[in-house]
């Protein structure tokens, strides 16, 4: 349609990758382009940005010590839930924000990851014995990620040719198929509605948990008492996984694959004419997006210590979608803000109601979830009409073949074109 200018820029980038790629330094070879994205032309990170990020990290790492010390264990558990949803949303962001394909069935991969982790964990724990129990979780988490990625690959095979809106409905159907199948206990694997682990089986405990629980005990006066409880342990585990996910996803966006996603998102036909392998790009988007669903699922299963099919409803898929859409498709800060806003704000109201409103708090607590969904629906409608690109929009990327890469700020007409292009397009209509 109108974004031919845009497309040519992106496709130039794909070309540039082959032609102008200089020798990578040793540091770049090891760390990829974490420090300095090679061709994205993003402004070098300013000291202010670094300071703010560091401050945020410090707050995030100290927060559980304060909360647990003051006995706010429930709020900590809510934070774990938020973190898991943000990881899920980061995975979805690859599919929607980068590759421009709408996925309404995110819970499918979350569910596959959770069940895969628990199903694998119990025999593995028996195999390794109690002395190596701690190894089970890391192994199983990677395994769950791979299983989910495999399922993502399987799903990508048939849906490759589907147009945008049909794809959304098919993924919705796939999500429901997974949930119903889990409920029906296929091959006696999932134990139906009763969930896993089956009675008699025990979940192995994660690495260092018991050691940390027994050694770390800080007390200040009578008010403050900190130990590493399950919630604290999983808070840190999820936080670390989240940070890893952010770094990896960010790098993928800046990689050659990320550029081919961007080209495909803006105009599939033009991208393929310029030599982007559409099949490969779509498959990788599905596989990598599903992988993070599996990782989050494994953490979820171990955090709860068991699972049933209930949490994997369509509604929760919509909530993950809303995090990405409202936060900003294709923008990692957007996803973080969206997650905190959509998952965190209602939890805060709920926590406030429980702690400070006594008996009335109980009623409020049950209403918060319904009101949240009501406003979420309304917010999605309003956002689409008023601010399609989300709260924190994706930064437009600028590529330059020769000379220094230009900052995004200078060129306003292009910036607006690129941000509106951030919304995924339905292929045939344009």
């Amino acid at each position, binding site marked *: 349609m109108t974004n031919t200018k845009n497309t040519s820029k992106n496709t130039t980038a794909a070309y540039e990758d082959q032609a102008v790629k200089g020798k990578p330094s040793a540091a770049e070879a090891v760390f990829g382009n974490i420090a300095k994205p090679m061709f994205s032309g993003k402004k070098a990170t300013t000291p202010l940005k670094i300071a703010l990020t560091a401050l945020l990290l410090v707050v995030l790492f100290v927060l559980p010590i304060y909360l647990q010390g003051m006995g706010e264990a429930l709020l900590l558990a809510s934070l774990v839930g938020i973190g898991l949803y943000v990881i899920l949303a980061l995975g979805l962001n690859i599919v929607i924000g980068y590759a421009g394909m*709408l996925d*309404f069935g995110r819970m499918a991969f979350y569910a596959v990851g959770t069940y895969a982790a628990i199903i694998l964990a119990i025999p593995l724990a028996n195999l390794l014995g109690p002395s190596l129990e701690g190894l089970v979780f890391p192994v199983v988490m990677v395994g769950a990620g791979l299983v989910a990625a495999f399922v993502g690959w399987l799903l990508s095979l*048939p*849906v490759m*040719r*589907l*147009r*945008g*809106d*049909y794809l*959304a*409905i*098919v993924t*919705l*159907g*796939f999500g*429901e*198929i997974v949930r*119903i*199948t889990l*409920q*029906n206990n296929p091959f006696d694997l999932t134990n139906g509605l009763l969930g896993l682990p089956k009675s008699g089986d025990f979940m192995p405990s994660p690495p260092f948990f018991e050691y940390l629980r027994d050694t770390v005990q800080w007390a200040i006066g009578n008010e403050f008492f900190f130990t590493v409880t399950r919630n604290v342990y999983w808070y840190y585990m999820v936080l670390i996984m989240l940070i890893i996910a952010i770094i990896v996803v960010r790098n993928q966006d800046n990689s050659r694959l990320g550029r081919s996603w961007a080209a495909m998102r803006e105009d599939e*036909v033009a991208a393929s004419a310029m030599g982007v392998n559409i099949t490969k790009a779509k498959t990788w988007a599905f596989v990598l997006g599903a992988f993070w669903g599996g990782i989050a699922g494994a953490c979820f299963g171990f955090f709860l210590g068991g699972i049933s099919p209930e949490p994997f409803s*369509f*509604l929760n898929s*919509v909530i993950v*979608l*809303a995090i990405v*859409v409202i936060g900003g498709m294709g923008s990692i800060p957007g996803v973080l803000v969206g997650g905190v806003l959509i998952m965190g704000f209602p939890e805060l109201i709920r926590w406030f109601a429980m702690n400070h409103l006594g008996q009335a708090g109980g009623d409020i607590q049950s*209403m918060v979830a*319904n*009101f949240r*969904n*009501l406003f*979420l*629906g*309304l*917010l*999605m*409608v309003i*956002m*689409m*009409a008023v601010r*399609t690109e989300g709260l924190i929009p994706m930064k437009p990327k600028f590529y330059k073949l020769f000379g220094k890469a230009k900052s995004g700020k200078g060129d306003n007409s292009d910036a607006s074109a690129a941000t509106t292009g951030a*919304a*995924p*397009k*339905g*292929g*045939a*209509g*344009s």
Partner: protein
Amino acid sequence: MEFFVQLLIDGLTLGGMYALIALGFTLVYGILLMINFAHAEMFMTGGFIGYGVLNLLSNESTIATASDFFAPLSILQSTQPFFTTTALGFILMMLIVFGVAAVLTGLLGMTIERFAYRPLRNSPRLCALISALGMSLFLQNFVLLAVGHRMVFPTPEFLANLNAVPLFGSIRIAPIDLIIFVTCLVLLFTLDRFVSKSKLGKAMRATSQDKDAAGLMGININSVIALTFFIGPALGAVAGTFFGLKYGVVTFNMGLFPGIKAFTAAVLGGIGNLRGAMLGGFLIGVLEALASGYLSIAYRDVITFAILILILIFRPGGLLGESVVEKV
């Protein structure tokens, strides 16, 4: 054999409801090329409105326990015996119930189009889909908060006293099934005539072929689209009320599965094609009934989803639709 025929009857009743919902999907898709995800909620809202009106007209305790605000409604108490026990009263009551549900839901559909979809008419198609999904979430939770999560449909005395109609052998049709089937056929036939013969129907077809050209020919595109968003939800509301009458209960999240099945029906028949949606509706209904009878009731919904995925992959044009060539 008898089991098979019984399943077939069940499937055709179900299929009639799916066909009514599928028409809403297909009408909107034909004109705006958009999947109106909130259409499933029109079915649900219609069911709830139908429940409210029916309750008012036939349930004594509703008015007796109503607050002062509803005091003027006590006039209805005297008409209740007429409505619930006599044949004429029952027919009249059904007409009122379906009429009110259809008109109110139709108006709701128009309102949604005006505020949620019209601003997005020129934006990418997926934005409209996300907006529709948001609308669906909003409506579900609005009904949940305003009315309740599960409402038990009253069965009018007259309907409860009707005997099942014997067909042959030991096969019988429940009166409600017969009513649903006949009404669906009548509605489908009327709509088909309306779209192919009337002036407004012609305007709708013209708009679906080429919006801009239709506008140049003097057709008011906005009002044609508004009309589409009235007819679709109105038919959906009829299906929702039938659903409540047949299964005796309406829930706030009842729209999702029938909605997706109706969408499957629309795609199966060829989305954008009215007769295709009707055919698809009956086919999906019968397939679902047979699948739950012969294969597995637990995997009934999985089978429908699998059908949907298979059609979209192998024959995206559907049975009656033409194959669409992607243009650049």
